[in-house]
């Protein structure tokens, strides 16, 4: 019997395996946002005057801004007064010096997530700056990195120890009033990661951070700043999961990348936050601003993302190709199942001469999900010899989901070569039948087809992430098929 394609939808209903809350007394501020809250956050982090001023400026601008409504997503209005803007684990004053000193409950959390931190760090050679809620609690491999002159630390530490670098680069890629959520983040960001790779240094290991959202009703406002100085190289991995929650949680992160002459930054993300249950209840609102600035000549910034989580995703990792011969890349797999909504894509702004960009976007929709690609390619008049190739493919699984493409091309230079291709397809009964008669279960067949569809993106991921991403994809689609 040929598999019934309608039946495919029922294969995808495994429960979210990372759904739990670790019971740690959190030091949380009461909900609501005004200047006093901004001052309190800044004070609690012992920030210098310039940071407070910076935050206040952002807050005042945010107050006058409108929440954007153009994305192809629908959700009830967010009450920004009902959100608590700061939450830190109690042990803040007495930060652990090594993993042994880390609150065992935290380590337990990581274990539940399948990330044995110490093992992973040692065996895989990965330095993990783990962010639990809003304050970093453990940093490893620091010495090895500092030997190479690399600064890899929580953002708050960078403000304290390297204020000149923070002052010089913070907000230069994503200005405070860039958009509503970036402004909010600028005002209240709690912590995040800071990376500085000095001239000519090739970072000896992949840098990685795990973000978690833990305390209920606490928006997570991460701020990441990565600077690759002339001729340097760094690969940064970011992965996240969040506990099961019924209320929607807001996440508005900002990531800024700066690549100077001949530098290269590779930024990989696996995003697996709680997407809500099968009926669309709960889940994270993920409204993120990520942007890289290829400031120097021959610089390169590459974004790779695997987006399987969140109830709503609003995310456009972008590249500003300012330096001559600079390169921007965007590889994305976005999976939306059940009632998830994703509006994601990229912006490639060609400013320098002979700049090139590549966009490969794979969108998968299942259940009742809506998945939209939104991308901008802009070639400025002075960007002679600009080159872009965009490919965005959509895969539909089921009759109730939607797949959308909204590409924008704004070309102001005759020497530009810009190409855009898009296709939409579904897993056909024929494909499934063929796999079934070769002995594959229906679920394996679907996983195989989907993984094949995403291969171009997965091969861009660092090795261990690629494995995780494939597994994640299979989990995410479980219950969508069968």
């Amino acid at each position: 019997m040929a598999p019934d394609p309608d039946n495919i939808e029922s294969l995808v209903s495994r429960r979210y395996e990372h759904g739990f809350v670790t019971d740690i007394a959190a030091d949380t501020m009461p909900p609501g946002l005004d200047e006093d809250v901004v001052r309190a956050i800044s004070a609690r982090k012992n920030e210098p005057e310039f940071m407070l001023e910076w935050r206040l400026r952002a807050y005042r601008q945010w107050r006058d801004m409108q929440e954007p409504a153009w994305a192809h997503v629908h959700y009830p209005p967010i009450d920004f007064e009902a959100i608590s803007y700061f939450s830190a684990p109690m042990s803040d004053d007495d930060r652990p010096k090594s993993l042994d000193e880390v609150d065992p409950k935290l380590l337990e959390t990581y274990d539940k997530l399948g990330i044995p931190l110490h093992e992973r760090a040692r065996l895989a050679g990965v330095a993990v700056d783990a962010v639990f809620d809003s304050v970093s609690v453990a940093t490893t491999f620091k010495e090895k990195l500092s030997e190479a002159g690399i600064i890899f630390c929580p953002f708050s530490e960078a403000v304290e120890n390297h204020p000149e670098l923070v002052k010089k680069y913070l907000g230069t890629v994503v200005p405070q009033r860039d958009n509503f959520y970036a402004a909010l983040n600028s005002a209240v960001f709690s912590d995040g990661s800071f990376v500085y790779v000095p001239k000519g240094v090739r970072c000896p290991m992949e840098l990685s951070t795990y973000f978690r959202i833990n305390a209920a009703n606490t928006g997570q406002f991460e701020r990441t700043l990565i600077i690759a100085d002339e001729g340097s190289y760094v690969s940064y991995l970011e992965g996240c999961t969040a506990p099961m929650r019924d209320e929607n949680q807001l996440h508005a992160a900002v990531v800024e990348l700066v690549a100077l002459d001949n530098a290269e930054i590779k930024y990989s993300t696996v995003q697996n936050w709680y997407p809500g249950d099968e009926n669309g209840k709960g889940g994270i609102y993920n409204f993120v601003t990520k942007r890289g600035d290829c400031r120097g000549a021959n610089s390169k910034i590459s974004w790779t993302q695997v987006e399987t989580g969140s109830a709503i995703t609003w995310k456009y990792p972008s590249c500003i190709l300012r330096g001559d011969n600079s390169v921007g890349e965007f590889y994305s797999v976005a999976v939306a199942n059940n009632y998830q909504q994703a509006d994601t894509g990229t912006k490639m702004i060609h400013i320098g001469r002979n700049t090139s960009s590549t966009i490969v976007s794979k969108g998968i929709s299942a259940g009742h999900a809506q998945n939209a690609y939104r991308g901008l390619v802009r070639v400025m008049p002075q960007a002679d010899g600009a080159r872009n190739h965009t490919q965005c493919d959509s895969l539909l699984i089921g009759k109730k989901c939607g797949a959308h493409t909204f590409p924008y091309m704004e070309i102001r230079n005759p020497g530009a070569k810009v190409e855009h291709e898009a296709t939409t397809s579904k897993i056909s009964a024929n494909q499934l039948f063929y796999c079934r008669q070769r002995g594959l279960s229906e679920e394996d067949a679907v996983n195989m087809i989907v993984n094949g569809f995403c291969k171009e993106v997965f091969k861009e991921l660092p090795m261990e992430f690629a494995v995780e991403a494939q597994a994640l994809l299979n989990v995410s689609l479980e219950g969508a098929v069968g």
Partner: protein
Amino acid sequence: MKPAALSFEALRDAVERLPDDRLASSRRAALAHLAEHGLPTTRNEDWKYTDLAPVIDISNRWLQRERETAPSHEREKMVEQVCRSIDADWLVICDGAIDNRFATDFEQPGISVTRLSEHGGELQFGMPLSDLNAALLQDGLRIHIAGGATPSRPVGILLIDHAATSPGMSQARIEIELEANSAASFVEYHVSSGAADHYANTVTTLRLGDNSRADCVRIQNRAGNHSQTGRLSVVSGRDSRFRHCAFDLGGKFIRNDLHVDIARPGAQVEFNGLYLAGDQQHIDNHTRADHRVGPATSTQEYRGIVAGSARGVWNGKAIVYEGADGTDASQTNHNLLLSDKAEVDAKPELEIYADDVKCSHGTTVGELDETALFYLRTRGLSEHEAKQVLTRAFAQAIVSKSPIASMHDTLADRIADRLANLLQGAGA
């Protein structure tokens, strides 16, 4: 910056001055709609690349001044020229007024032409600018093709405007209905003259009966200082076929909206377009195909050649509704940029809510292929000639898709003239 506003007091007076005929209630209702909703601004996603300020400015100046009424000799000459060059039964709308000399009995059986004011039905005006059109409409034409009729000659509709000394503005509205099993072709020709600014705003509706066929060619060749906005709304019947080809050669500020509503299965829809823009021209084509049911096919290909400081905008949208299985929708847009100051903005959109569909789009923007140019140079052509050959070939792909074969030569000539102009301007 505050968006330009239409002066409503003057507009209200202008609507009041129009004859108290059967269209009067529609005009007032459209005015009320316009007063409530206003005109779209660049904050509106569909108008992101096109700011209506220039035509609002012309409208305001027109509303506040005396109108020219004297027919010009120049205009008569143009009417004659167009009607002679294309073989069709012509209807003529001059400055928004129906020219009685042409709107007479058609020799071909099955075609009847009447005035909208004779019917007194409600005018449709829900979309941007269609309310402005309805509010200021003097009168419009209704073309009816009887069931089973297949007239051999195209119906030509010439829209001609003239603004010699003071700003001009005109509204035209054409409603076409094809009954079941009929087949007809239509030529819409827009032309204008005069040194003063002019803004023309047209609304065309086309209703296709079951198993009917409509072939349409629209040519816009307005004076270089004149502006136009136009909306064509098509509703397709079961197993009907609609083919449309649009050529934008002239004008200063042009915006075309083409909307096809596929509400019955089996429809085949094809629309293509060519825009040639130079100097300060702004040509914007927005298309939208609503696939409400399947199976149905929509294909579109737009090509643009943009020179000088001109801007070409193309936004194609296909929406496939839930359950519209068997939909096949494709969009293609190719652009040639000929100068440093020219700009192309392209946006091919797909919104898909059904899974048994085939949808694709492809867009390219670039300059003339250097190796092709080099090859032609080695065969003894000058650079200018080589560019002419290549741009003509690029444009010819759309000409050959034009559904009225008898017009191909005329079209190719007009396009060659315009291209020669553009290339001169591009300094080649």
